[in-house]
């Protein structure tokens, strides 16, 4: 990690053309960072670290459901989806969180979570696939990672710079702490709307590639749109996402003429009802 990080910084500094870069305008630095194609490559291990730390934070807020069969099922569906993407070999991990809240999360490096509250509102596997594929798309596009890097307010970029001066382990620990706090803040605040719409558009294609009826995600959005917006279980999702109605309308417009021909692909209701229904009936 350490070596990779210094490499990343080296790349940044070299591209800026200045070794005395410490007073560099932040925006300029971020611009350089964006243009540096090596950045993504170099960053993969750092992505995994920020991802697992963010996942630990999320699971600290709501634990995993203790049901091996359910968790295994969601992992099989999720991995099958991820295998249809450009990053099939990430160590993908999927989990159902034990929370009434209606939400789903992705953290960098391939962690994807869905809450019990959202899972139980679904009617078939195509709906589950649609939501997991939306989250997978966030990981593919490194939306959270880029947002953390972009967020100059966190001072993260400054810290990255200072790492170049002294990359002792205490500094690194400090950097990681800041990255984690920036990431936690991001989960509370949400990504740009554009990132959410993009993840919707990618998600329905990933679901269709995996052989599902691609209208699973629109179907979930329609169900969410019917929930009373005052319902506290939706507070965070509504705060961090564009309205379900707007997402549904934009998705439908993008899908029309392109994905309708896949609409007769399976929804896989039987297996979903068996596994998720069994969990719901037992209440654990």
């Amino acid at each position, binding site marked *: 990690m350490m070596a990779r990080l210094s490499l990343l910084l080296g790349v940044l500094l070299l591209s800026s053309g200045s070794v005395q870069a410490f007073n560099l305008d932040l925006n300029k630095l971020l611009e350089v960072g964006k243009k540096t194609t090596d950045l993504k490559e170099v960053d993969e291990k750092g992505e995994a670290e920020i991802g697992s730390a963010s*996942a630990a934070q999320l699971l600290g807020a709501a634990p995993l459901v203790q049901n091996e069969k359910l968790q295994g099922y969601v992992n099989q569906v999720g991995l099958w989806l991820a295998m249809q993407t450009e990053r099939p070999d990430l160590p993908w991990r999927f989990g159902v969180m034990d929370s009434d809240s209606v939400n789903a999360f992705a953290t960098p490096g391939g962690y994807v979570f869905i809450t019990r509250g959202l899972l139980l509102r679904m009617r078939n596997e195509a709906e589950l696939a649609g939501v997991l594929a939306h989250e997978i798309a966030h990981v593919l596009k490194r939306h959270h990672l880029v947002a953390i890097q972009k967020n100059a307010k966190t001072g993260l970029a400054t810290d990255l710079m200072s790492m170049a001066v002294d990359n002792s382990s205490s500094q690194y620990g400090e950097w990681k702490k800041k990255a984690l706090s920036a990431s936690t803040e991001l989960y509370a605040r949400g990504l740009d709307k554009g990132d959410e719409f993009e993840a919707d558009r990618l998600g329905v294609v990933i679901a269709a590639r995996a052989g599902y009826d691609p209208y699973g995600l629109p179907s979930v959005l329609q169900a969410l749109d019917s929930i009373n917006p005052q319902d506290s279980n939706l507070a965070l999702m509504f705060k961090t996402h564009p309205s379900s109605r707007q997402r549904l309308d934009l998705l439908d417009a993008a899908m029309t003429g392109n994905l309708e021909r896949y609409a007769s692909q399976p929804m896989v209701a039987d297996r979903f009802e068996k596994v998720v229904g069994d969990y719901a009936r037992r209440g654990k």
Partner: protein
Amino acid sequence: MKNLSLLLTIFLSSMSIASIAAETGQILVNTDLKSEPFADAKTLASLPGNSAVDVLKRQGGWMQVKPAGNGQGWVKMTAIKLGGAAAGTKGDSGMTSLWNTAMQGRSGNTGVTVATGVRGLSPEDMKNATPSPDAVKKLDNYAATKSQAESAAKSAKLSKQNIDYLADAGGKK
């Protein structure tokens, strides 16, 4: 008083179980009722905005509905708000009612565990959480292998397709 409202909650949520079988919806704006789930299918009637329909099923981006009068047909799913005009719908679709029943069974007469089932995820919850790296490690136990994922897909008759990502309105992919 508190017990009374708990009872009332339980009573109301058992009622929603019955209503799931026949889902209702509300037409958002004037919409053509089509004979089939296609844009160029024959138009059967025009459904006025705010009118109520029974929703029978979904097929792709279309829903089969039964308007208040007679007959049935198809409208785009974007033209419908599920739950209908009834305010305060809880959106208890899917398996929610099964779960609620299980919780009621557990709670017996007291209804105590109805409240303990509530675990929120507010921004504060997330910021104040104590990280749980052990839970992250535990995910490894649940992870699927590619061959497991493949055979699960096969048994559900899911076949892979080659499809390009969709462009947004501005043509950006």
